[in-house]
């Protein structure tokens, strides 16, 4: 399916649809407005894991923030399961690059935050929290404060907090970007493990923003490459590697070939961005 057909099809009844999405930021003083996002179309079907790969400053985070409802588009629309998105909501769970655990709440209380905001019965909420604490390997850390945790442990908690809310789609904005290389690889495997522990029909829809090529391929079944600012989706590359995946797929010829293709795409954009 082409990504930008001449006439945009209607939004999907199930899944995420982005149509003609643009964003420009007003200029400082008399400067002309900056265009961050060119008209962008995008479909993510239920249960898909899609990586958005782009050089820094290409507008990929802006795209994700608009899907989350945290930023307003200048034009175009976002639909989730046929419903227009205008504001943030618990149907779109998010994990940020910065550490956004509430420092005054313990690990367990952080994971309970969304469930309590949505007035789920306390007993049920605690059971759900306990399940995600176990799934993300946080057992024994329930009563720790965020400041007592390493970066990796904080992002595990943030992932558990987003998943405990049972969102329709999980939006991940470079969630491992601040972690060291080794922790980052472990977290990628953990994410796939948590995601893959559901049956293929029950898996969460995931939109994962990153500038790391290995990470994009390793996680996703489809990689969208964004151009340099103003961003648009310039290429779509399916990843034909079967799940479950572990780190050994990173050494396979298919992986190397995908990586070479994506590197060529990205290098071109980084060079353009550097010349601006």
């Amino acid at each position, binding site marked *: 399916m082409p990504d930008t057909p001449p006439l945009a099809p209607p939004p999907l009844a199930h899944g995420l649809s982005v149509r003609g999405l643009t964003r420009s930021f007003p200029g400082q003083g008399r400067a002309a407005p900056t265009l961050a996002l060119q008209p962008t179309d995008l479909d993510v079907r239920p249960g898909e894991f899609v990586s958005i790969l782009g050089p820094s400053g290409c507008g990929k985070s802006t795209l994700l923030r608009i899907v*989350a*409802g*945290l930023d307003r588009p200048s034009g175009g629309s976002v639909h989730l399961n046929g419903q227009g998105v205008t*504001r*943030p*909501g*618990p149907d*779109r*769970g*998010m994990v*940020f690059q*910065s550490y*956004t655990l*509430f*420092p*005054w709440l313990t690990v367990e209380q952080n994971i309970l*935050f*969304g469930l309590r*905001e*949505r007035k789920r019965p306390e007993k049920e909420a605690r059971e759900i929290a306990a399940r995600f604490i176990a799934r993300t390997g946080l057992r024994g850390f329930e009563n720790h*404060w*965020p*400041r*007592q945790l390493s970066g990796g442990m904080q992002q595990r908690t*943030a992932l558990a*907090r*987003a998943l405990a*809310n049972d969102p329709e789609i999980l*939006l991940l904005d470079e969630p491992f970007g601040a972690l060291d290389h080794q922790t980052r690889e472990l977290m990628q495997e953990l994410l796939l493990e948590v995601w893959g522990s559901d049956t293929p029909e029950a898996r969460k829809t995931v939109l994962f923003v990153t500038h790391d090529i290995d990470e994009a391929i390793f996680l996703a079944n489809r990689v969208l490459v964004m151009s340099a600012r103003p961003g648009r989706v310039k290429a779509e590359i399916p990843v034909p590697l079967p799940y479950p995946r572990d780190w050994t797929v990173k050494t396979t010829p298919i992986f190397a070939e995908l990586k070479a293709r994506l590197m060529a795409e990205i290098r071109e954009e980084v060079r353009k961005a550097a010349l601006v």
Partner: protein
Amino acid sequence: MEPLKPVPASARIALGIAFFVLFIGAWALVTATGFVQPLFLASPWQALASGWSLFTEYNFIGDIGMTVWRVLGGFVLAAALAVPLGLLMGAYKPVEAFFEPFISFARYLPASAFIPLLILWAGVGEAQKLSVIFLGSVFQVVIMVAVIAGATRIDLVEAAYTLGARQGGILRRVIIPAAAPQVMEALRLVLGWAWTYVIVAELIGAQSGIGHMIMDSQRLLDTGQMIFGIVVIGLIGLVTDFLFKALNRRLFRWATL
């Protein structure tokens, strides 16, 4: 000495005590040698002796109790109004735009300059004393709390939105808990200032309190009592500060990790 290099705890305590010793030593020296006349400055032991007589003969404990009650009464009233208003101003920009210009003006009005007016309005009773403290503290607390609440990390607010929080939840379960430790610190600071207002309020038209005692001692030229009164204020300040800090550490353990 290296810049910014921490000092061991034992050395820090020793240094802190050393200054007190030097200070009292210098004070004893200038009074004992007659360099300064006793009329102007009582010696340390004279001040202590005056203090003893204050407690045993002049019911100084009653004065202390009176002053503490005035400070706390006026301060609690001010905080009860100023903290909620400051939080609303920090959270909601139109509320801030409405109050901020007036409060920025009002907080430069010297509370002590209101004392004559307040005596006219409220007489020389407790209401006047409390209103001096109230006026001196309320605008300061509002502005400080508004700035603290307004500086809430926006990414925490955004995270709460994506977890399903609405307006009220953001204020009650993100902005308020995030601001709480710094709000308590601001209150600790302003409480220190409130102590200076209460003494001024008691210098004029009061029948009791530490300030009133100092005023009486001046008429009798008893510098020992005056100095003792001032030292007692400092000591009470030190104790309240310590209690406030201990309370904050207890309440907000997460913030001190």
